[in-house]
């Protein structure tokens, strides 16, 4: 095609209320042309509402949405020319696979001879060659997912929306499809907005993640930045496992339990210390000057297969967890319940977060 393969999306001031509840609260979001952006949030956070606003199925109270230069906020869904994969696939049960995929082309006035090769091409793209004559109810969940995807991309939309498309698949298939979708996105290059409540899925697939809660954008960044430098307590708790401990600020010097914290950057702002189980290690008495040290008593040890968790009650009464990979050495060195232990957190991984401990338990 002569035109661009992708369009940027500019969302400005989009608000949607239901009674006194904000589903979307003044959301601004710039989605780059060709990027894979994930809207991540718990159920009821507004992520699906935002996707439906983009698709045209939800009319917001106010705001602006532009695809490229074009304002589309009042444009009916059938004119928006965006591909969409629905959560339950929404494959038409009265049409076979080829008719489903050919449907958008038929609506665009293409002749039968023109439709068939493009349907075949789309089927090949999703690795379902020769499935055209199948009925929709003869397909497995994974195959339906692929057909829905083929139908959404067959008319070369420059924007692709996906509403938790993998949630109905079992874990193994879901993980394989995540990689496949990612490759497909790299190949086709269209701007993709992906909705999920599964943080691991978001971290695996996205160029950038927009974390949404209570209708507000909580953080927008690359997966690693979201995980390593959460902007607030909500993001820290929602993504990954974490414990947030209150920090005392004495004249710009943050300390915990009376001991000043060693920090990597000059960034000493924030009232909460982020502790992730896999970032904590058990320290011997002598070593590691670049580590912040915490002491406590082992309360419980939980074996989880590939790793194990040790729950520790710190001297100040706070509870933290340490995750270690299950290996011969680490299992042999694992403490027992009641043991006194020293935990270390590397200064480069010592992160402070603005906010209060409210909602800080995991």
């Amino acid at each position, binding site marked *: 095609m002569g035109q661009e393969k992708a369009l940027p999306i500019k969302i400005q001031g989009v608000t949607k209320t239901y009674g006194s509840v904000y589903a979307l609260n003044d959301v601004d979001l710039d989605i780059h042309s060709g990027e894979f952006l994930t809207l991540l949030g718990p159920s009821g956070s507004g992520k699906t509402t935002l996707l439906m606003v983009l*698709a*045209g*199925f939800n009319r917001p109270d106010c705001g602006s949405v532009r695809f490229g230069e074009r304002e589309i906020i009042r444009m*009916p*869904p*059938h*004119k*928006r*020319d*965006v*591909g*969409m994969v*629905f959560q*339950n696939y*929404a*494959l*038409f*049960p*009265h049409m076979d696979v080829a008719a489903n995929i050919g*449907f*958008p082309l038929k*609506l*665009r006035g293409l002749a039968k001879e023109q439709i068939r090769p493009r349907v075949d091409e789309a089927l090949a793209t999703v690795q379902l060659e020769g499935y055209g004559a199948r009925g929709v109810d003869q397909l497995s969940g994974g195959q339906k997912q692929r057909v829905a995807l083929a*139908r959404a991309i067959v*008319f070369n939309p420059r924007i692709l929306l996906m509403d938790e498309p993998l949630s109905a698949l079992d874990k193994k298939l879901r993980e394989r499809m995540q990689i496949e979708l990612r490759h497909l996105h790299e190949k086709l290059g269209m701007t993709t907005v992906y909705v999920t409540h599964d943080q691991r899925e978001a971290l695996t697939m996205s160029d950038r993640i927009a974390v949404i809660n209570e209708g507000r954008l909580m953080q927008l960044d690359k997966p690693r930045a979201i995980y390593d430098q959460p902007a607030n307590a909500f993001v820290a708790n929602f993504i990954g496992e974490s414990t947030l401990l209150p920090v005392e600020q004495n004249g710009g010097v943050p300390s915990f339990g009376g001991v000043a914290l060693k920090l990597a950057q000059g960034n000493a702002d924030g009232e909460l210390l982020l502790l992730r189980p896999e970032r904590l290690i058990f320290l011997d008495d002598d070593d590691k000057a670049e580590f912040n040290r915490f002491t406590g008593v082992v309360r419980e040890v939980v074996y989880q297969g590939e790793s194990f968790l040790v729950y520790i009650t710190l001297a100040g009464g706070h509870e933290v967890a340490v995750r270690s990979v299950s290996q011969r050495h680490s299992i042999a060195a694992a403490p027992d319940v009641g043991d006194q232990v020293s935990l270390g957190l590397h200064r480069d991984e010592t992160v402070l977060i603005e906010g209060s401990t409210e909602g800080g338990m995991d």
Partner: protein
Amino acid sequence: MKPQSVSSVGVNAKALRKDEQRERLLLFGLSFPALLIVLLVIVVPVGWLFWLSLFNDAGALSTYNYSRMLESKSYLRIFKTTFNVSFLTTLICVLIGYPLAYFLSQISRRWAALGLIAVLLPFWTSLLVRTYAWLVVLQRKGLVNQWGIELGWWETPLRLVHNLNGTLIGMAHIMLPFLVLPLYGSMRSIDFDYIKAAANLGANPTKAFWYVFFPLSLPGLLAGMTVVFVLCLGFFVTPAVLGGGKVIMVSMKIETLIDLFFNFGTASALGVVLLVLTLGVLFIAHKLVSLDKVLGSGDGV
């Protein structure tokens, strides 16, 4: 793998099999009264009817009652009228009922429930009362003609009753719920995501309706049409009252044959033929959609 008869020798196998048999027997016991009633009020009388139809006026065994039906033009005409009236009534019900069911299926369930009650309301008055009410409304000096003339819409009274018009108006009114209920049920069960998907793929509302919603509503529509058509085939009261003797359907002919001429043989033969034709209609409908849907009023209701 071949199924092996291992289960028959294991621990408790005998007792477990006995439990299963007892449950099956209990289930049969529960359905027995209904089966008995079906046998007594349907199978026996229909068999007797068929038996009666095999005797001529002189009381001798013959196929005269059936051959007469094929030879006499008047009988053919009655069957033709019956199918005609049934077809037209079904058509009117579809034209009125489809938009109604569609509307009800698109509003919230609470309002739709109110609408459905309104549709069902007439069921709580007797069929005879409703039919005579139409007579009052539609007759020469009835409500409709009075208003129409006073408002200057027409000058001489319209012939709305004692003919095909009246029959169709009355029958369509009585049959409408039988179409709306299964149709509404099947429309409710259409996932709105299909319509959204159609719109997303580029279908304007009209196209989304014809390409997606309408085909998906067809099973319910066919179910409703079949019920209405089959009920119309045997309808008696309304065409008898509102047709004014000008519209003669099979059921009315049966009534005259028995009441006036005491001719049980011919009446029975008519009944048997009507029954066979009705079963034929059901069979064709079953070929188009499954019979559970036809008789079980769609998915959702």
